[in-house]
């Protein structure tokens, strides 16, 4: 019984003499493979060429700074609460007098770690953040030799300071720059 009209009846006729020396079919097959010599190769030679990600790609996290180069994060912990994979840990500290140029508010994150092996790059931390302090960038976490290498510390995550290293800052902003 035919389930679909796409099924093709297998032809079990014995081969004719010409078919049995295979030559014609082999020539046909070789013409097909030969045509592939002139086809465009879809390969991207990875380390030299990279494929651009889509605009909504969620990659490695970046801890943001404001225009004066102060860290935006206040260590409120909303991102850690929102995180379904429990990849984020942090420790809060109080800003001391004289540190106003470093931290935007009077509370800041003394320790901020994201375990990239746990992270599922869902972007819920970005959505949870009331201070626009964390966002997911267009890069991904590179390979590493040990597990500890995948626990990203605050230094690994912080965006370069826009006042002292403006070029690196612009580069880190990437697509985000046009979005704002």
């Amino acid at each position, binding site marked *: 019984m035919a389930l679909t009209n796409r099924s093709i009846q297998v032809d079990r006729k014995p081969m004719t003499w010409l078919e*049995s*020396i*295979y*030559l014609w079919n*082999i020539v046909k*097959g*070789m013409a*097909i*493979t*030969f045509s*592939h*010599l002139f*086809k*465009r*190769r*879809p*390969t991207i*030679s990875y380390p030299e060429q990279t494929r651009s990600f889509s605009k909504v790609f969620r990659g490695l996290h970046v801890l943001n700074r404001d225009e004066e180069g102060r860290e935006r994060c206040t260590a409120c912990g909303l991102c850690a609460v929102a995180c379904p994979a429990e990849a984020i840990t942090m420790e809060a500290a109080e800003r001391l007098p004289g540190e106003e140029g470093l931290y935007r508010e009077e509370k800041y994150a003394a320790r901020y770690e994201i375990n990239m092996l746990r992270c599922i790059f869902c972007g819920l931390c970005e959505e949870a953040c009331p201070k626009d302090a964390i966002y997911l960038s267009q890069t991904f976490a590179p390979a590493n030799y040990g597990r500890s290498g995948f626990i990203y510390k605050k230094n690994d995550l912080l965006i370069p300071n826009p006042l002292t290293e403006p070029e690196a800052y612009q580069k880190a902003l990437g697509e985000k720059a046009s979005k704002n």
Partner: protein
Amino acid sequence: MYLLTMDWWLVLEKAILVAFIVTISLVIAMYTTYAERKVAAWLQDRRGPNRAGPFGLFQPLADGGKLFFKEEIIPVSSSRFLFILGPSLAMITALLTSAVIPWGGHLHLFNRDVSLQIADVNIGILYIFGVVSLGVYGIMIGGWASNNKFSLLAAIRGASQMISYELAMGLALIAVLMLTGSLQMSRIVGSQVEGSNYWNVILQPVGFIVFFVCALAECNRTPFDLAEAENELNFGYHQEYSSMKLGFYLFAEYINMFISSAVMSTLYFGGYDILPFVDETKWGLDPNLLSILGFAALMAKTFFFLFVFIWIRWTIPRFRYDQLMNLGWKRLIPLALVNMLITAALILWLKK
């Protein structure tokens, strides 16, 4: 006194030629492995090896180095002497065939007429057949000495396949021999080169196709690579081999490919004849230059056949064993026989 009367220059000349030809076959075999991977990649819309050196040109060196430095394993239950003899035999027989192929015309150097053929024996083509048949022993001994069921099965398959296809190959060749009237390689080429004579492929298209198919089978190339059937016999006769002994087997296959391409160009495509239907001597070129151009022409033909070998390998799946035997015994041999009879009849008819 006898030593003094010997033509020592001839010995030197031949020694240089042997060294040159062997080196060339080895280097070409090496780069055929590279070409194989590259062409395979192109046919499959990939890029192929491109990391070692520019365009991956050092890839064969890297592969060879790897094979040299790998651990040499000789299984305990194997027959040690035969185990080593197998790959040596494969390599030796692969290289021996190049001796009777005329690689070019004559070079006139230092007041001597240097022939670009190592040995112009009057039974040249029989010699090639003999040596190629010896190549079966490389496979058979290797498979037997490994003391392994799969290897032995593969070796038996390979041996029976080579013997079956040699028959059709010989029958296809007889037609050429009838046209030329000689077994001597230089005369077979000469009859095609002289003046504006035809290449044998024009007179013998069917014979050429039969010969080509049999050459594929003799080299154990896909679609006839039943001897090494990697997915059914687990790599066949060289399953137990490692390091450079494995390398020799793989390498011998590529040398065989090169040599049989050269033989095919010699027998059917005019050898070192540069263009068909054209008398090259009328171009008024320096004879030495003409010889070198002839050598280049032979190489170009050989490379074309190497490409076809590779092209076929990456197009056609392997034959089943019964299909292989049916094709050999029931199709190719009758075809070659009919071809031979028709050629013979035509020769007799036209000569009258």
